[in-house]
């Protein structure tokens, strides 16, 4: 069963420099208990897609142009604000990239954790406090009953991110959206945080959307991956297929451009020439064609559609 279904979502930003097509006809789904990886570079729309259907983008300039988004059968795009607010932080919760700026520096951890619970459930403050402490213990914060009194600046980056995760999980969400949850952390701390998310997912059977630019992180954690480029999905396949038989030239190039620990040291990395396009003036045809090593005549004229090829979906004229 699919917990989230997104169909033909378009979200544009109406700016002075023109219309920026940040999310342009994006469709995907997340099954129950599944971890979906969303990979792309900055500006590819990998975060904005999710912020858009959760109503977390300022409007104007942002506007959802068209599309359908259903969460557990409920239409998210035509829901009133109040019902949407009841879902966010409750059934759907989000971990943001930067734990330094996403916690309120004026409030203690306790206040912030309890607020999350009390907004969504009718339990006593005492019970909410108890649940908050349990939440901190669950994410491996030592001396949780003391630490809960601290303010964000008293905690290290890894600790703060754990507080964010604890907060996101307090109301037992069915869908967790983790946007670059470990990018601001050191590798040794990252390993712990990723393991934590994975364990909690298995225990609670929740679905996870993991947004990242780090191909190593998605390799170990996800079941399925979508690769985004310039506001569109370029490829969708199982994690195994993405890494072993990548189809889209962009996916291939991305995989070859990262130095990796497990391969022998080479002298040159394959690099993708040029820059990601300006989304106010995207290239005609396939948006990747100016940088594509396998470009054919058709590419700069006709826009490819996402179509099924074997077990994958690819948006490329080569298939």
């Amino acid at each position, binding site marked *: 069963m699919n917990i989230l279904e997104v169909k033909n979502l378009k979200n544009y930003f109406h700016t002075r420099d023109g219309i920026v097509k940040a999310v342009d006809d994006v469709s995907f789904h997340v099954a129950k208990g599944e971890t979906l990886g969303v990979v792309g570079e900055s500006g590819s729309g990998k975060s904005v897609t999710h912020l858009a259907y959760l109503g977390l983008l300022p409007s104007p300039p942002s506007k959802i142009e068209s599309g359908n988004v259903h969460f557990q059968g409920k239409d998210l795009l035509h829901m009133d604000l109040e019902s949407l607010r009841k879902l966010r932080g409750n059934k759907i919760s989000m971990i943001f990239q930067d734990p330094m700026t996403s916690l309120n520096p004026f409030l203690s951890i306790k206040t912030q954790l309890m607020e999350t619970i009390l907004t969504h459930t009718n339990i006593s403050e005492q019970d909410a406090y108890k649940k908050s402490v349990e939440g901190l213990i669950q994410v491996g914060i030592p001396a949780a009953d003391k630490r809960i009194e601290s303010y964000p600046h008293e905690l290290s980056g890894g600790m703060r991110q754990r507080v964010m995760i604890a907060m996101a999980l307090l109301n037992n969400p069915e869908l967790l959206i983790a946007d670059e949850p470990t990018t601001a952390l050191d590798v040794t701390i990252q390993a712990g945080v990723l393991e934590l998310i994975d364990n909690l997912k298995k225990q609670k059977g929740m679905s996870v959307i993991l947004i990242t*630019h*780090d191909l190593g992180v998605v*390799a*170990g954690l996800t079941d399925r991956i979508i690769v985004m480029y310039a506001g569109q999905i370029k490829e969708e396949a199982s994690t195994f297929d993405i890494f072993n038989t990548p189809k889209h030239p962009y996916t291939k190039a991305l995989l070859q451009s990262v130095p*990796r620990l497990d391969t022998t040291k080479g002298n040159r990395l394959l690099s993708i020439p040029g820059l990601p396009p300006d989304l106010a003036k995207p290239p005609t045809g396939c948006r990747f064609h100016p940088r594509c090593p396998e470009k054919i005549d058709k590419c700069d004229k006709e826009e490819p559609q996402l179509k099924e090829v074997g077990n994958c979906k690819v948006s490329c004229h080569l298939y």
Partner: protein
Amino acid sequence: MSEILLQTINLKKYFPVKRGVFFQKTIANLKAVDGISLDIQRGETLGLVGESGCGKSTLGRTIMRLYEPTSGTILFDNKDITTLPEHTFRSYRKNIQMIFQDPYASLNPRMTVESIIAEPLKTHRVGDHTERRKKVFELMDIVGLNPSYIRRYPHEFSGGQRQRIGIARALALNPKLIIADEPISSLDVSIQAQIINLLIELQIYYDLSYIFITHALSVVQHISTRVAVMYLGKIVELAPTHELFKQPLHPYTEALISAIPVPDPQREKERKTKRIILKGDIPSPLHPPQGCSFHTRCPKKFDRCEVEEPRLQQIGNTKVACHLY
């Protein structure tokens, strides 16, 4: 054998922590760099890795004498440059240049590309205006920037292009050593590869030595000849790159390498089961633990580690500071 270009002997940089308004008293020292001895050979790349707060950037800046060292010696071409007065030191600084992490913050937004790249030449009074302009053209071409952009301002460039401007500026004085402090961390994945390739090409072309400071071990493995691993202001292991990654000796290095996710689902599954996950955070460098500074997180710790500080000792080609050896 290759010759030593730069050497540091027991280099220390302490930042005093002061209290009080009028009669400031030093109440503690933050030991950011605590007795580092290492050398850089001509033409090699020394990778300097560690987690945030381990002192790797401070070490780089102390070698440049952007921070005055607290004690210890820096030898460049066998000459002690630690205590040279500023005006004499300037002629040495030409030989050591730096590339910074943030290409947005390290370029003056009010200067054109030409004046940014030509500034080191101006400061060191190299050439006249036309010669300098010629040099700027040449440098822009070398780092892959279109020389017709010479009058543009930094905001007109992307992150990767800005980093190229920073590299061109670092190359302007024909340095022998470049200290690159996280030069690719703020760039997109597809752009990172472009910059890494450029740095490798420049190294061959100019016979440069690099100190490559980063937290990304996979990049270090790709680019470095040798790697020094730092923890709380000290080197815990220093080894040739392939040996360090094949057989790390220090438990910290081992944990660091095992923590890196590999972009391959099959291998990741195997690695995950063997992954060493360190408990806790890095201790505050204001109050480093007694004995070995890593003992609070070390999975292989024994009694001696809490009491006695291990010394850096030679084992084969590797130097390691650990009581296990």
